């Protein structure tokens, strides 16, 4: 192993990421089985049926708030957290350049991607920043979306009180619609996130840096070795990657397009009636498409669990190796 850029996150961050993922998946499964009820009735049945599903959604919502409060407190008072926080802030010059270079790269006018656009391309951790501009964008967008979802969710918690407070029903409806629309946007983002990190050729099927903290990552110092390269040359592409990435990519595209169409066709909610273009949602293709989208979420949940299984295995392996090393040491 080499010091590639994958030992990035602290233990608290990796734990937080896993817990956040679990909670957000629960929110998604409960929320979408209500929103796309025509297509996901089976999921609603699994999630507590019509009388339990929203109770579960609300409990998961409280979970999200608890996690967020913990995280913010930790960011403020945790040791050395502020430097990490700085890494999330945009570096306007380099991030912009990386974006422009990416556009050129796609158009075939640049030979390589900017360091600020790289998550992993055979670079060592000191050559690329902690987060690529895409990574920063993902964190920023998710943070804004989750904040707005929490605020609007709390506001519509008790609709009668909200209506009394604003003295109008329209306000309550506006928050309901906002909460729903934002949920759909977030769903699309999460599908993309799952694809981006689950199907990267170097990491497929999971990026372990999200699960194994940087203190557990082996850091071999190569400065004294006559070693060329960073270790990427030692990797081989898994044979299943090719079809898996095509299948996963297709599922993500179908899922994103379907939830978008589904929310437009399901008149009234979350898109206001005046803006909808269609009537009935009971369309076979749409049903399949939205189910494919939810399948992508299940895949994300599965990968998140798998990442943690790998972490546990890895930690066990490290412990075993240390024990053997200790015994052989005491034998000497």
């Amino acid at each position, binding site marked *: 192993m080499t010091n590639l850029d994958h030992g990035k996150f602290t233990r608290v961050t990796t734990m937080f990421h896993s817990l956040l993922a679990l909670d957000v998946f629960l929110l998604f499964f409960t929320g979408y089985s*209500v929103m796309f*009820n025509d297509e996901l009735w089976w999921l*609603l049945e699994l999630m507590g049926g*019509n009388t339990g599903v*929203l*109770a579960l959604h609300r409990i998961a919502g409280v979970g999200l708030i608890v996690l967020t409060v913990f995280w913010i407190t930790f960011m403020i008072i945790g040791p050395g957290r502020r430097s990490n926080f700085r890494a999330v802030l945009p570096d306007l010059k380099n991030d912009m350049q990386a974006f422009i270079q990416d556009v050129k790269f796609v158009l075939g006018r640049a030979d390589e991607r900017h360091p600020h656009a790289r998550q992993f391309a055979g670079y060592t951790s000191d050559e690329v920043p902690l987060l690529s501009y895409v990574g920063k964008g993902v964190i920023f967008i998710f943070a804004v979306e989750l904040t707005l979802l929490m605020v609007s969710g709390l506001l519509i918690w008790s609709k009668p009180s909200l209506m009394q407070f604003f003295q109008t029903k329209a306000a309550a409806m506006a928050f*309901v619609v906002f909460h*729903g629309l934002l949920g759909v946007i977030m769903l699309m983002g999460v599908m993309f996130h799952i694809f981006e990190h689950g199907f990267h050729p170097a990491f497929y099927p999971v990026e372990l840096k999200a699960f194994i903290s940087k203190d557990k990552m082996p850091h071999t110092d190569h400065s004294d070795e006559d070693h060329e390269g960073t270790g990427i040359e030692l990797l081989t592409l898994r044979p299943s990657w090719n079809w898996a990435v095509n299948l996963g990519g297709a599922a993500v595209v179908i899922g994103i397009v379907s939830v978008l169409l589904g929310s437009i066709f399901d008149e009234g909610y979350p898109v206001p009636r005046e803006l909808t273009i269609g009537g009935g949602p009971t369309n076979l293709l749409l049903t399949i498409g939205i189910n494919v989208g939810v399948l992508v979420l299940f895949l994300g949940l599965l990968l998140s669990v798998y990442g943690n299984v790998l972490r546990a295995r890895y930690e066990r392996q490290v412990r075993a190796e240390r024990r053997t090393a200790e015994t052989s040491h005491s034998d000497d």
Partner: protein
Amino acid sequence: MSTDQNSMQREQMSQGVMSVGEGTRIFPDVEACIDCGGCVVACKRTWDVPPEEQRISISTMFEGQEAEKPQLNSNSGRALNQGEFPGETSFPMQCYHCEDAPCVSVCPVDSLQKNDDGFVEVVEDLCVGCQYCLSACPFGAPQFPESDDGAEAVLGGGGIMDKCTMCEERQHVGKGPACAEECATDAILVGDAGDIADELDKRDAAPAFNKEAMEIIFGADEARAFDL
């Protein structure tokens, strides 16, 4: 108006229930309502509605006050539509089984459905208690009797929604809604849109809701039958 004309007019007035079945509408004549609560009792007795819940309720505003213009004192509907102070007015509030029902369009799980003969029904097995219909209904019809019980009270959910059914079952056997049959002053009109518009005309009364609300209840076409 002479006494003769008055009695003639009274003879021409219909019962509250003019026709039942497919395409039936229900609509209040607020001028006739005297807030006696007869409809509330009839509804509760007919459907065993529990004490903490009401499928129909009378809301009386400006109790004991007179209209600004004396000639509008006996025509709250007209006063309201002209933006004048109507004086004491009682509204029998219930589900009007709207043609363009906003509750049906917001219900995320299609628990609210407008069926072929025009009734807006709640499918109890589908309702998730989200209370979106409560936010959407302009008339406060959706009720949530379970919202104070157990888990719902802790988590703020609504339980299963309940509302006026316009006595659909009674209508299927040719009877009118219990509230309208019981109303001593025939303040709850039941019939098709034309019947109701004609009856209000005969009574020289105007609908108490504005044009927007009338279009929701009767649909843009039928709402034209009313003098707005």
